[in-house]
């Protein structure tokens, strides 16, 4: 098209207002490519949890942005993150979602790598001549990997913010998720449900801190029965918070009884991690009109079974492609994706509670965290300094 694609920062400054954003940001393929370049292939993203590779030799494969990666624990016990790509001819070295191995063997020419990434065997090595150096042909590490309390993050950029700087106030979300456990530790070993949805990834991101929608979108779920009738109203007393850096949360701790939906916090860590009380969701962008929503329940190490079990049961009922919550969210986002093909009106409205923006904290149903998401997004999509 596109006004967006042809121009740079100034177009985005117009398209992302203080209380509205252009519908094109969800539908224009050029926008999506710029997001991948400037957000998913540059900044920090959640990729997995150390507990998924709890013992030496365990691995999982994931995508980091659009790129395939391999999370391993090597024989020394260190967690490592690699491009899942043979440095020889480019085939993925691992085709499985998860497993346990000491070696990854490329199917094409049998270049073989240990779980610390080193090239340890290849057929006919002598044919490459005396200058061939195995040491420069190991698996390529993702340029930066760091962890916080077992949450593993990766970045395709060699430089930029540290993970600590990126997480900022959102570290508190991870702390609260972990501290439900008496030993401060979570485990994610139940496997992931992977739901393909025909909608732009930002709809899932924004939806995390939208408490305006649940009684409507999820009215059919049968899971609203235990909730006070005024739970999803401003009067109930929860707050929504723009945590900065695109992160946000909805917080009901100050209300009597606290959050009903689970034991942990309810918040979003930019750009792809949703800590949903008792579950972890990850948002994978696929194309401008497609995402994959990954979901797994949290197990809290040391938490009594009787406290854990209701959370597991709720996950089983609610989430995944066949849950009673998730399909209604997916259907809503797919309806948005269809509706936004209409170019008029141009804007998507984000006005609720705008009068509280200066405090970064609004009423439970306010769109303050969504505006925080967009403020950070605008910075990343326009900041020339961030391009380097």
């Amino acid at each position: 098209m596109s006004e967006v694609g042809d121009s740079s920062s100034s177009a985005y400054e117009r398209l992302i207002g203080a209380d509205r954003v252009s519908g094109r940001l969800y539908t224009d393929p050029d926008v999506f490519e710029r997001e991948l370049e400037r957000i998913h292939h540059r900044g920090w993203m959640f990729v997995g949890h150390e507990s998924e590779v709890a013992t030496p030799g365990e691995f999982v494969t994931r995508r980091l942005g659009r790129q395939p990666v391999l999370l391993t624990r090597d024989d020394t016990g260190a967690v490592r993150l690699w491009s899942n790509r043979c440095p020889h001819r480019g085939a993925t070295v691992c085709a499985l979602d998860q497993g346990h191995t000491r070696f990854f063997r490329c199917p094409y020419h049998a270049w073989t790598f240990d779980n610390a990434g080193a090239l340890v065997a290849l057929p006919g090595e002598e044919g490459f001549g005396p200058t061939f150096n195995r040491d420069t042909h190991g698996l390529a590490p993702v340029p930066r990997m760091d962890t916080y309390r077992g949450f593993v993050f990766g970045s395709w950029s060699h430089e930029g913010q540290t993970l600590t700087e990126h997480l900022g106030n959102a570290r508190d979300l991870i702390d609260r998720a972990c501290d439900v456990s008496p030993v401060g530790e979570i485990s994610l070993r139940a496997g992931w449900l992977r739901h393909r949805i025909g909608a732009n990834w930002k709809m899932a991101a924004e939806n995390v801190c939208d408490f305006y929608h649940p009684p409507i979108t999820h009215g059919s779920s049968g899971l609203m029965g235990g909730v006070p009738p005024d739970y999803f109203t401003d009067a109930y007393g929860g707050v929504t918070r723009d945590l900065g850096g695109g992160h946000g949360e909805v917080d009901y701790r100050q209300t009597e009884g606290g959050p009903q939906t689970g034991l942990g916090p309810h918040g979003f860590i930019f750009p792809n991690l949703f800590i949903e009380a008792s579950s972890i969701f990850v948002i994978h962008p696929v194309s401008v009109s497609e995402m994959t929503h990954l979901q797994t329940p949290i197990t809290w190490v040391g938490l009594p079974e009787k406290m854990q079990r209701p959370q597991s049961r709720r996950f089983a009922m609610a989430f995944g492609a066949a849950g009673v919550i998730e399909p209604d969210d997916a259907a809503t986002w797919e309806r948005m994706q269809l509706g936004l093909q209409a170019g008029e009106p141009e804007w998507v409205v984000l006005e609720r509670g705008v009068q509280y923006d200066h405090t970064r904290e609004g009423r439970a149903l306010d769109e303050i965290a969504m505006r925080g998401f967009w403020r950070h997004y605008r910075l990343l999509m326009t900041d020339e300094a961030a391009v380097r």
Partner: protein
Amino acid sequence: MSGIEELLEQQRVEQLLFLEARLIDERRFAEWEALWVEDGIYWVPANGDDTDPRSQVSLIYDNRSRMHNRVERYVGGKAISQQPPPRTVHLVSNVTIELAASDGTVDGDVSLVIHSTVQVAESRPGVRVDWVGRVIHHLVEREGALRIIFKKVLLVDNDQELTTIDFLL
């Protein structure tokens, strides 16, 4: 069992599976529920066929009350994903009977273990998906009729990214 008896048994089982498919496709969910005994389990594993449903995620792992909740949602008029409801056609095939007595893993009053295959054509606005899987039913004789106590659907792509499944498989 004589040859004639085996044929009659095969037909009786197939008729039940065909009826179940028809009740789903015609959205006669109360009658579908009536095919089940009270302690029934409806299971659609994820990430493989032989997972432990207590420790691993499943696409569906419903007891009877959850099955009821599920179909109530389909007809309750509030679910956005049912506006309009997906249309489905179930094709049931490859029906074979194993006597429970030959299957040491099944206990209780299970009388028959049925293996079949299903192909479900799903249509909703803008989406047309075929779902294919092997199906295992455990049937019991209650009050003179065969009823379902266990149904496990092994989708061929249950380890892949899947679109919404907001219908009965």
